[in-house]
């Protein structure tokens, strides 16, 4: 039950969407884009989101793209997490999506919705950070292709009036070995204590983490330590832990000390899995 009402628009093209936004914004309606609608319904009822107009991007063909051609995987932002997973188009991404929320919710939460979420975890970004993906963003001044590393810093940095249309990933990432693990406080359905995803390219490991700090990140510093040779796995992990890029959070799901304990164990599992040692 949302205490406030809004106007609902479902444009069928990118142009229509951005123009609508302009207009509604000028009218003072504080428009927002939505696709799955799961966040407006749940945060809206607690007055944590407010708007007088919503623009549903689900009807825009580009937001529903799902293909692999010219060695590029394209996934429209309006796909649900279940669809991304079932498509098997990019296992690295699909396996991250299938760990979010619960199955029924994943039938509703969209990829774009998760990436643009107000909630800090945004786990779908982990594989996109690891695969140096490109985000396709539409705004009043046209469509831009931007590197994930530029547009996703702690969160999705969209300018006013912009929305995420698609993500693009180089096809070579479709079959690289990766490891993903989501650790929860105790329930199978919960936000993460930590979710880590690691990807092995040639002989080096890439690492992205959600839940450890107040935002998801990929850390080159930690990767550097993990990729050191000639020392034990434990030593590599010890050094990587010293390079965590921001304060480790303590909240109702776990203290920072415990998160680090869980991180160490999970990193160990990841390294063993990807390096095939022990």
């Amino acid at each position: 039950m949302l205490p406030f009402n809004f106007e609902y628009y479902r444009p069928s093209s990118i142009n229509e969407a951005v123009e609508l936004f302009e207009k509604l914004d000028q009218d003072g309606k504080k428009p927002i884009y939505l696709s799955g609608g799961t966040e407006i319904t749940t945060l809206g009822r607690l007055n944590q989101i407010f708007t007088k107009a919503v623009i549903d991007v689900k009807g825009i063909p580009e937001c529903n793209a799902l293909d692999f051609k010219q060695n590029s995987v394209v996934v429209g932002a309006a796909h649900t997490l279940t669809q991304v997973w079932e498509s098997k188009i990019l296992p690295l991404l699909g396996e991250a999506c299938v760990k979010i929320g619960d199955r029924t919710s994943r039938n509703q939460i969209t990829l774009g919705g998760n990436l643009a979420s107000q909630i800090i975890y945004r786990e779908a970004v982990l594989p996109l950070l690891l695969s140096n993906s490109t985000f396709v963003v539409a705004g009043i001044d046209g469509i831009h292709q931007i590197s994930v590393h530029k547009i996703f810093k702690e969160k999705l940095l969209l300018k006013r009036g912009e929305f995420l249309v698609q993500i693009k990933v180089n096809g070579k990432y479709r079959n690289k070995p990766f490891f993903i693990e989501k650790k929860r406080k105790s329930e199978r359905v919960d936000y993460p204590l930590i979710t880590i995803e690691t990807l092995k390219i040639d002989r080096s490991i890439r690492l992205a983490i959600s839940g450890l700090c107040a935002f998801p990140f990929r850390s080159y510093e930690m990767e550097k330590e993990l990729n050191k040779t000639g020392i034990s796995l434990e030593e590599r992990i010890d050094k990587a832990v010293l390079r965590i890029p921001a304060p480790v959070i303590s909240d109702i799901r776990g203290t920072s000390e415990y998160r680090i304990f869980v991180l160490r164990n999970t990193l160990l599992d990841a390294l063993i899995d990807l390096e095939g040692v022990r």
Partner: protein
Amino acid sequence: MNDELTLDINGEQRVATVRMADTLLDVLREKLDLTGAKRGCENGDCGSCTVLADGLPVKSCMMLAVDAIGKKLTTIEGLHDDPMQHAFIEKWAFQCGYCTSGFILNARALVNQYPDATDEIMEEWLSSNICRCTSYQEIREAVKSVLKEQRFNVGRPRSRNKR
């Protein structure tokens, strides 16, 4: 600002006057008198409002009603003498009954989509709903009995993704 919208529910075209901000759950319960979907948390967490949209379970508390236009919706009122209903009774898979509509619909979709559902798939799907009365073991037995019955029922083959 109210608008009229038409929804395809249980094989019927139903018209309702709604606020654009109304959730599907609000409309089902308050405008269409389909009260089988329950308000348990209105936050997408408990699953007692689960209905099927194009054969897939969705939590109607976090879907805007307007978003359901064009989808084939099934609520618990749309099941008639369904094997899943029989199985829930036979295996004592409910007590107070409040979560039951949601559980049955989720389970119904599950066995349609995955006639060979493993324990793992059942867990993935059914952990979307919360029951506070039963031990879940009864629900597990109910769903398994339908899967088993369906496998014996050669006359009605079903395959994954066939809706």
